């Protein structure tokens, strides 16, 4: 289903933060905010829930560590016990360094893969850019015009209060939730 979106373009971090916070307080539905760098406090302003990625990191790290201890134990004292310089077969302290390394490796790689998975990032993906300047110096607040009560003039006023450089409305392409295309037909002419 296609949605009607309202976009406010801002020139600074402070402006977009203020506008986002106020838009949320007034009960508007925020589709997303696009920024050239990670703006701290913006997730709180948008009311986003904390990500669960640390759990992936923890789970895979733990699994990596446990698997490695088991594997080292199995190879050196079960599968092929070999006397090397009289060292004990199941010398747990000697297994610590490799167990640690494998734990870090698995935790790190799994977290990055999970990030790419949840954010749908993959090589060669065509970016759904709100504006080309987003990766340069532009901050864009995207609101969903979800009900008949959505007052465009009031929202425009809100954005202008926070020094918006420009505002516009767009129709989102079907099947691309939260994504907006520059080429999408404009619904209403904006000032």
């Amino acid at each position, binding site marked *: 289903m296609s949605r009607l979106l309202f976009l406010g373009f801002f020139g600074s971090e402070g402006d977009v933060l203020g506008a986002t916070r106020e838009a949320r307080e007034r009960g508007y539905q925020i589709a997303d905010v696009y920024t050239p760098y990670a703006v701290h406090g913006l997730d709180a302003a948008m009311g986003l829930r904390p990500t669960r990625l640390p759990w992936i990191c923890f789970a895979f790290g733990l699994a990596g560590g446990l698997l490695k201890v088991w594997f080292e134990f199995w*190879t050196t004292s079960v599968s092929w016990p*070999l006397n090397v310089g009289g060292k004990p077969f199941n010398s747990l302290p000697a297994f610590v360094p490799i167990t640690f390394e494998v734990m870090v490796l698995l935790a790190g790689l799994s977290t990055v893969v999970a*990030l790419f998975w949840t954010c749908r990032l993959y*090589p060669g993906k065509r970016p759904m850019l709100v504006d080309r300047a987003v990766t340069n110096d532009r901050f864009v607040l995207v609101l969903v015009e979800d009900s008949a009560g959505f007052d465009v003039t009031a929202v425009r006023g809100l954005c202008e209060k926070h020094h918006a450089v420009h505002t516009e409305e767009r129709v989102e392409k079907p099947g691309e939730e939260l994504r907006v295309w520059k080429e999408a037909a404009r619904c209403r002419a904006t000032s």
Partner: protein
Amino acid sequence: MSTGPRTYPPAHEPLIRGDKTLKQVTEDVCAPIERGPTWLWWAGFLVSFCALLLGIAAVSYQVATGIGTWGLNRTVGWAFDITNFVFWIGIGHAGTLISAILFLFRQKWRTSINRSAEAMTIFAVMCAGIFPLIHMGRPWLAYWVMPYPNFRGPLWVNFRSPLLWDVFAIGTYFTISAVFWFLGLVPDLATLRDRATTKTRKFLFGLFSLGWDGSNRTWMRYEMVYLLLAGLATPLVLSVHTIVSFDFATSVIPGWHATIFPPYFVAGAIFSGFGMVLTLMLVTRKVLRFEDYITIGHIEAMCKIIIATGSIVGLAYGTEFFMAWYSANEYERFVFFNRALGPFAWAYWTMVLCNVITPQLLWFKKIRTNPGIVFVLSLVVNVGMWFERFVIIVTSLHRDYLPSSWADYSPTLIEISTFVGSFGLFFTCFFLFARFLPMIAMGEVKGVVGYAERTTNVLE
């Protein structure tokens, strides 16, 4: 109302000079990539590439002939190759330290230098990896260090050996550093993609920027993953050089068998790594005109880390000597007297001069803030730390328990060419990096552009 440039309290000095706007940051960082190589770049690249070719020739020769081409003998079984291996691994540590440890400590000045320091880490670890690989003698069987199911027993690798710990430590370190570096690059590659004018650039940056669109939902998760990776890489930095030191410390050779080795090696690694970061950054800021980004403040901060880690290294040298005497072990005592007064005394005193004495000059603010002198001192640190590894390895081995087996050691031309070749590889990679990728993390620097205003306003 005053009209001049705004002044800030000393603790809130801007991290980036020149009142840059976000757009200017993009322009400045992308300029070296978009404007094409200068003659200075070509000159540097060609010199490095020639060194790399020399290294390739030397490595091919020794792989074809065998490692009898080295100056090793039955007494000195480890020398130039392991010295170079530990040297290069040490260089790499500053990159991860800057990107991970300083990130966790909220040191915002790291943003201007973290990208190139991380690149330096990856290239340095690549250089380091070459040496044990050739040292195996039959590098085409290098996969034998991996625990894989086989029909030789099944014969597994020896998990109780520090040399295998090394394989896992270096492998993990390289992988995590490369992933960390690439992850940091993604938003900047998206910037380059959106600025690209040629088809090739559009394709390549489009391919590697993974469809990044600046969504805050992505940024939020990205920041979390960055934090997690920093948290994981921090103990990794400490563990890697600790494990490298275990290669020595778990043996029974006097001069190697010391519990001080792990912290001493880690401090030395950070010391030499920052030496190399300073060497590279001082040249980069001048050649690419990044003086506003890599400021005197950045250089000073790095110098302070050099004083701290250099002093730890100096303390470790003293402790080693004290313990050799206090242990009342005559072999241990002999090794240390032999280091300071024996045939390799010149190497030992070069090490002390370069690592303990000269870096103390950095206590003086006038010296710390003079890029020319700091550049020379950073080179001195690099030389000193190379000699440290040489001294630890060669002087501990060349006179062992049996005077009848005492021997001398000097590197052959092949060993020297391989070492030169590793520098060639390092700098060739670095020049290519400087030419094709953003050397400064735009996505992070933009976040600290208004640092002075924000922090001062909070105080007011």
